């Protein structure tokens, strides 16, 4: 379990993280969604111990923060930018990061083999990373953060600049980690990724954590009304309408009401609010602004 309380961090006049608090349950995948510069990476940096907070506390697995060596052993970190050695081979990279976590012998060999398999690079194990494509490097970057089999994993925008094939590979890897009940904190500015992978989502902007909940609850609470478009088989109502569009907080109930009037419905389109709408409603701007 991860408990974050009143975290603050400023870089000069810029308040990068401002009173951020949230909790992540054991085995849960928690997404931090927000545009670039929202404070997600700084928050993750503090959580993994790479940066020091100005104030606030972090507690991981009930045993303190990442300054503790024992906690660091539990943590797996995949940074946003590639953090692997170009002049080493894929195998040497995995082995080096395994050694840093105190692994050795057959355990290290097995984990390196598993890492190569996970990243789909078994055939390129002895090739230098400098010869890899961007997607292959991304997959290796992910595998290096997982080589020591961590139980708490921090993934900082792991799919940035990745081709669709490698992106799917990464998603499958994360879904496997979820199946293994790993606790995951995942930052992204892609709402599709957050929708697909995360059990709960925190919306961040300008250092503030604006809302935290499940996808459905966020949409219900902050998404606003859905857009409903009904096409009738015959002219309907006093004006003889063939199409009717309206907004509703309970679209399916309203559609049911039309159906109960005995009117023949040719087609019904419901555009439900999504995370983009949630973000728009919370901040007044879109995720890609």
């Amino acid at each position: 379990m991860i408990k974050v309380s009143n975290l603050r961090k400023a870089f000069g006049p810029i308040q990068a993280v401002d009173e951020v608090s949230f909790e992540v349950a054991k085995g849960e995948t928690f997404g931090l969604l927000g545009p670039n510069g929202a404070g997600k990476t700084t928050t993750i940096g503090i959580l993994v111990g790479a940066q020091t907070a100005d104030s606030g506390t972090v507690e991981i697995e009930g045993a303190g923060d990442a300054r503790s060596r024992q906690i660091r052993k539990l943590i797996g970190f995949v940074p946003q930018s590639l953090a692997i050695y170009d002049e080493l081979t894929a195998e040497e990279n995995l082995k080096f990061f395994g050694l840093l976590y105190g692994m050795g012998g057959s355990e290290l060999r097995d984990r390196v083999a598993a890492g190569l398999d996970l990243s789909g690079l078994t055939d390129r194990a002895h090739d230098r990373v400098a010869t890899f494509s961007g997607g292959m490097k991304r997959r290796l970057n992910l595998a290096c953060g997982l080589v020591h089999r961590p139980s708490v994993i921090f993934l900082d925008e792991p799919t940035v600049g990745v081709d669709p094939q490698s992106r799917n590979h990464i998603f499958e890897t994360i879904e496997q980690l979820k199946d293994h009940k790993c606790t995951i904190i995942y930052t992204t500015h892609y709402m599709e990724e957050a929708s697909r992978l995360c059990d709960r989502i925190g919306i961040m902007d300008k250092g503030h954590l604006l809302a935290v909940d499940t996808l459905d609850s966020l949409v219900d609470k902050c998404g606003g009304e859905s857009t409903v478009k009904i096409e009738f088989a015959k002219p309907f109502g006093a004006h003889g309408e063939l199409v009717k569009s309206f907004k509703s907080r309970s679209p399916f109930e309203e559609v049911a009401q039309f159906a109960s009037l005995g009117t023949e419905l040719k087609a019904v389109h419901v555009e439900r609010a999504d995370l983009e709408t949630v973000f728009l409603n919370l901040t007044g701007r879109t995720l890609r602004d």
Partner: protein
Amino acid sequence: MILAIAQKDLKLLWRDKAAMFWTLGFPILIAVLFGSIFGGSSAAAKIKIAVIDQDQSPKSERLVERLRQKTDALDVSTVTLEDAKNQVRKGVLVAYLVIPSGYGEHSNPFAASQSKLVLGIDPKRSAEQGYLKGILTEAVFQELQEMFSHPTQFRTEIAQQRKLIEADPSFAKPEKQKLLKFMEQAEAFVQSIPSTQGSRNGGLRPPAIEVQPLGETASSPKSAFEITFPQAIIWGLLGVVTTFAITIVKERTQGTLLRLRVAPITPASMLAGKAAACFAACAGVMVALLALGAIVFHVRISHVTLLGLAVASSAICFVGIMMLLSVLGRTENAVAGSSWGVLVFCSMIGGGMVPLMAMPAWMQQVSAVSPVKWAILALEGAIWRGFSFVEMLPPCSVLIVLGIVCFAVGAKLFQARKD
């Protein structure tokens, strides 16, 4: 973990071809090139000559043997006259010497007609010509000296010469009589000397010179390579230091430093790993260059243990300097530029370019501020200066203290840049 970091860094250095050139290839070039330009070793200064002995007499053979014994000055070969001329024309040989037929018989100073030794040499080589004439004169006079030292041989020689003078019709009568008179008196004088060789009064002997064996002090370099190899080592160290300083910044810019910081290792372990790799690389470069110098270029190692001390203290010093330089900039280019700037300046004033012994006195005083000076002094101390352990202490202590101070300051600044 320290070992893992050190191994990784050494592997990265080994795979960086440019870095390997600057740490090993470039220093070797400097040592060999400048060593050769400034004269190289004494072996390289030998004059190659060919001797054509047309006389084949005991006397001519003794002359050839004497020339062969001058191994420090001459490289004597035996070829035909035609080959010798060709090789001199091509510059393979500096000169050839012909010992003509009849040399043995007519080389005596009292001989009526003397045989001439022929020295074939390019007239432009006036310096070598003068040098060779001197060596030849010395070798010929050694024969006379030996003759005077052995009365029996001298008497035989005089008798032989008397016969030749008497039989020679080219002499005028008064001249012949004067010469024969002189020979008679000389023979009488020699007969008054006991003929026992080796006795106290045996023959005319050269001044007695006693050679007192004295251990070599090694206080001056025997060849230019003994100067250029310590300088080359400095250039190798500069290459290692710059490369490692850049790799520390590179860890930051390529993001791997973030992973290292998140890993369950202390910052001290991380820096210790870097320092261990840099130390191993510095020591490795020094040992490789010294081995090359000793095996191929006959650079003397006058004291192996003291050389080990010089290598270790130099490596410590330059590891510290590397740590300090790595925080001089935030980008690889900034660190590379500032590192080369600082190190080349240190090298210039410290004897890395112009040998310390060739610097004016005031410059030698100024050079004390450069770690390069102390590293060269320590290395030369163990190579040719013949330093004792006590004499090695000042340069080695300066290097170690400087290394520790630089490392501490550099590590502190590195830590301060955490965020």
